[in-house]
């Protein structure tokens, strides 16, 4: 129950209201994150199921998104601040082309943490990624806990993540 209020509160802060809020919460509850495949820089396929038992803070970005790149230093700070045994921070690029993703990582010095690439659009469609940066919090079983979470640059984010049991 408490979790629902937190979700509602954070969505409200993000400018979502009324019916849209109800629809989004109901929709997010149906989503599972483990069915989607992502590639690492070596081309190896991964699933978020690898982090089952941990919370996952997803950072959805693209090389062409300046506001996303601006969050990266804060994301690094966040990653060092949270307990890695409890929380995994995963960056997922939605670049259309792999070379753009890798070029962006090299060009902008984005080289820490788990960096994966969403090679098809299934994940983007299911999670309604229509603006970025977008941050999503998954629970220990890969279900959506927060469909649109606060940014790493928001101090409340680290505080909230540290309180997770």
């Amino acid at each position: 129950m408490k979790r629902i209020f937190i979700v509602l509160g954070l969505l409200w802060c993000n400018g979502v209201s009324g019916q849209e809020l109800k629809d989004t919460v109901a929709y997010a509850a149906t989503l599972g994150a483990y069915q989607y495949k992502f590639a690492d820089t070596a081309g190896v396929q991964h699933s978020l199921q690898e982090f089952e038992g941990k919370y996952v803070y997803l950072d959805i970005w693209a090389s062409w998104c300046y506001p996303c790149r601006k969050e990266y230093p804060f994301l690094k700070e966040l990653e060092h601040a949270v307990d890695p045994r409890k929380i995994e921070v995963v960056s997922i690029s939605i670049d259309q082309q792999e070379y753009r993703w890798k070029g962006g990582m090299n060009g902008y010095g984005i080289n820490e943490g788990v960096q994966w690439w969403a090679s098809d659009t299934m994940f983007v469609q299911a999670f309604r990624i229509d603006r970025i940066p977008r941050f999503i919090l998954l629970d220990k079983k890969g279900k959506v806990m927060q469909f649109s979470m606060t940014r790493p640059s928001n101090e409340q984010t680290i505080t909230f993540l540290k309180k997770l049991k």
Partner: protein
Amino acid sequence: MKRYGVAILLLILVSCTKKDDALTELARELGSYKYSYIETGNAIILNGVTSGETTLTYRGFPVSLTGNASGETVVTATIDTSLVASYNTLYNETNPSISATAFLPSFNGSYRIAAGENTATDSLYITLNDASKLKDNTLYLVPVRLTANNGGQLSTSIVFFKMMVTLTAVDLYINGGGSFDYTYPYARNGSQYWGFYLSTDDSGQPIGPASLNISVAAGVRYPFDELHAYAVTDVSDSLITAFSAAAYTTYEKFPEGTYAITKSSATVAPNTLYSKDSLTVSFSNYSAFKPGTFYLMGVKLVTDPNDPLSAPARKGVTSYALFSFYIFQ
């Protein structure tokens, strides 16, 4: 005296205040730039001409003032193409330049905010308008500048959208066709293939088809007009050699005078996938075929450069219908 001193000091301060260059001003204006709005758009391209520009996905941006409007306020959105270069400089990107008409703001770029409200009912997004100068599978930065009348102060005066544009090329391929006896076309190495093993009648004359229909399909629906398919026969050495190699069998080309295209064009109606009529290839002079020999001929789709509705053949072997004859000895 003191008053003069203050005045001189102020004068010096004012005259020494350097006006920021346009890029610095822009950077300051973009201090609250928080999101990249993602859109997708598509257009159909036939013989280099684009049409059917469609905005597939978008997320509306709320057009709002910093406070409630004192009277009805109209916010105007315009695509500012000059900001692409500034953005590239500011953020170290290489977004391609765009024409003023490639994209348009939603709702004709006009957003009304009622008195006492602070957000417009209609939201801002961009639509794909003219893809003629755009490239396939390319991400475009579309900067939108907002201005308000009535002295309204906008929450955000510049919004950046990123639209992924794809161009779907219209093409045609051979889809199938008629049968004779128990021989039906099937896909072989990508082409539609009819393989006839023909027996002879009491007089020793091979029994084969007098003609066969060939149907054509479009790779994508073209809503705006019909598409025209054209075909020619092909018994070139390159075709015969390539097929022989793929089939591990030696084929000869059909003898002259044994084949002809008797209907060399077909039409795909607007917004449909399959041709409403067929191409027809006719066969005659069966006595020219030697028993015990494999023969091959092809029908391939071509473009008529004089017909703007002549859709190009799909690249590769799917634009071929292949016919082989083998007469039992």
